[in-house]
């Protein structure tokens, strides 16, 4: 079959620039969103440059210094030292790499799996939709933290296994979201046009529908980043997931619990790190939603 040449007008470049600057203007309207973005950028920079900044790199690798046990915060050790005499500032800084990386990995895997399942279910409908969505609904009724804990425990400790375990419980939410969006888009005229031009379903879904439903996915992903970090820390806190000496915020907090209440500072730094990271991603997500999702705008 020969393709009919269609002259698609290119979108005006200057109009696109104007859209972006308008979006950024709207984003700047809320100082909370800007604050969230600033903290997120700071966290990313800290995580990237952590190897250079960390004052005591040997502590991250597991070196202990029993002479300096439980030192309160000072100029030498900003957040104090723990039961092994390790510098908490170094550990928390190193933990930011683990937390941000795992959070990002969970969200990306969930988006990939969830979008695929949701897009296929929404596009084809019928019994395919029925089977996929009933399965998704069932997974959504299982308490996700317990499921993630069980899977992580069975797979064994390690960052990779923990990411898989959390992703298993997270993708159904994306499948639901994407399915709804695909159903809303698939009857539109530009899809009919693409189908008339002979495009197959992978092409229509990937090239025509997905780019048009990216906004809600991006908004959900940015809001979920914070909760992914929180879930990673939760698994670490109950003793499943990342094991010491890999520094992870939840694991650090769980270790600190055994030296409470006398040496409270060992808990303070990792705890506030989790709080700040979750807060920053939530604020950023709220800001993005105001800009990208006109329906939710007030």
């Amino acid at each position, binding site marked *: 079959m020969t393709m009919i040449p269609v002259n698609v007008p290119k979108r005006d470049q200057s109009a696109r620039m104007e859209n972006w600057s308008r979006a950024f203007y709207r984003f700047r309207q809320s100082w909370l969103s800007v604050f969230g973005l600033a903290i997120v950028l700071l966290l990313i920079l800290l995580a990237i440059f952590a190897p250079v900044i960390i004052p005591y790199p040997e502590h991250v690798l597991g070196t202990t210094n029993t002479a300096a046990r439980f030192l309160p915060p000072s100029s030498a050790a900003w957040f104090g030292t723990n039961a092994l005499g390790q510098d908490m500032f170094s550990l928390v800084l190193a933990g930011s790499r683990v937390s941000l990386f795992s959070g990002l990995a969970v969200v990306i895997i969930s988006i990939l799996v969830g979008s695929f399942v949701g897009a296929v279910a929404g596009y084809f409908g019928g019994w395919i939709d029925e089977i996929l969505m009933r399965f998704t609904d069932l997974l959504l009724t299982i308490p996700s933290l317990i499921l993630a804990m069980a899977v992580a425990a069975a797979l064994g400790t390690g960052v990779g296994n923990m990411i898989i375990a959390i992703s298993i419980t997270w993708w159904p939410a994306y499948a639901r979201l994407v399915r709804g969006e695909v159903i809303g888009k698939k009857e539109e005229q530009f899809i009919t046009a693409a189908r008339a031009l002979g495009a197959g379903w992978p092409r229509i879904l990937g090239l025509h529908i997905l780019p048009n439903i990216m906004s809600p996915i991006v908004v959900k992903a940015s809001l979920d980043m914070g909760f992914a970090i929180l879930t990673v820390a939760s698994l670490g806190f109950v003793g499943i997931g990342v094991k010491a000496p890999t520094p992870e915020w939840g694991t650090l907090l769980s270790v600190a*619990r055994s030296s409470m209440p006398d040496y409270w500072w060992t808990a303070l730094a990792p705890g506030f790190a989790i709080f700040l990271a979750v807060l920053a991603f939530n604020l950023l997500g709220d800001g993005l939603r105001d800009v990208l999702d006109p329906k939710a705008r007030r």
Partner: protein
Amino acid sequence: MFLYVLRRLFLLIPMLLGLTVIVFAIARLLPGDPVGLAAGPNATPEIIASVAKEFGLDQPIPVQYWNYLTGLVQGDWGVSIFTRRPVFEDVMTYLPATLELVFAALLFAIVVGIPLGLLAAVYRNGPLDYITRTVALGGIAMPRFFLGLLLQLGFAVALDWLPLSGRFPLIESTPEPITGLYTIDALLVGDWYSFTIALQHLALPAFAMSLSPLATIMRMMRASTIEVLQQDFVMTERALGLSSRLILFKYVLKNAMSSTLTVIGLYVSWLLGGTVLVETVFDWPGLGLYATQAILTQDFMPVIGVTLVIATIYLLSMLVVDILYGVFNPKVRYA
């Protein structure tokens, strides 16, 4: 209405059946060596084989599933390899503690969150609005386990107002079990002394759990109240000379409740599944601690049992929410 509830209850059966398949498959198909763990590190192959036989783990997985399913209906939920006690008994022992915690947290979140959200919307951009919005932002981001630790440091260690952890002091005799919820049981027989002790132990963990739902309920309530306040019928009522208080509590509250209800329903599952974290911090002897113990020893039967119980409660609470929709919004009342 009655038929609707009946049909919904009937639909729970295939849902729960599907759940057992999924949970059983996850528990069984994952790598791991529960038999080896239960038999101990020095077990000979013969001991391992006998342990596997004792718990039926030597049979093919479909057979194991069938045995489990037929047992489930008869109240036999399998035996915990680790505690060697029937899972059903274990779950019934730990469930009341978790329910008490979840109910207390949810009650606090609703009783405080709904009025605050409503008032924040009425006095929009006032000081109360800013305070509730700040609390709402922080409350969602605050990890429950970290908040729990901070509460312990503040109220149990520094101020010494409340007990550090646990559900009831070992030296005291617990209230006669009626519902299994200590506070309720003590109240039912008018035992104020036990009630006070139970409440003191409950306060910190319940508050640690309630902050996130409180924040969300406040946010939802504020947003939907603002929306309702802008609708025409409110202006009509104002024009008719109805008092602000009557409009707010009789008409606006009712209309703003629907979306908040959904959130409350969703939080039941979130709270039940998330008690693990708070129970760990406060050594609260509930389902969460039981599940964690089972997971760490790869003891499948308790994990399946706990998961099914929580999922069932979640599905039932969604049903209750749907029925309550009808109460608040006659448009969706069921035939």
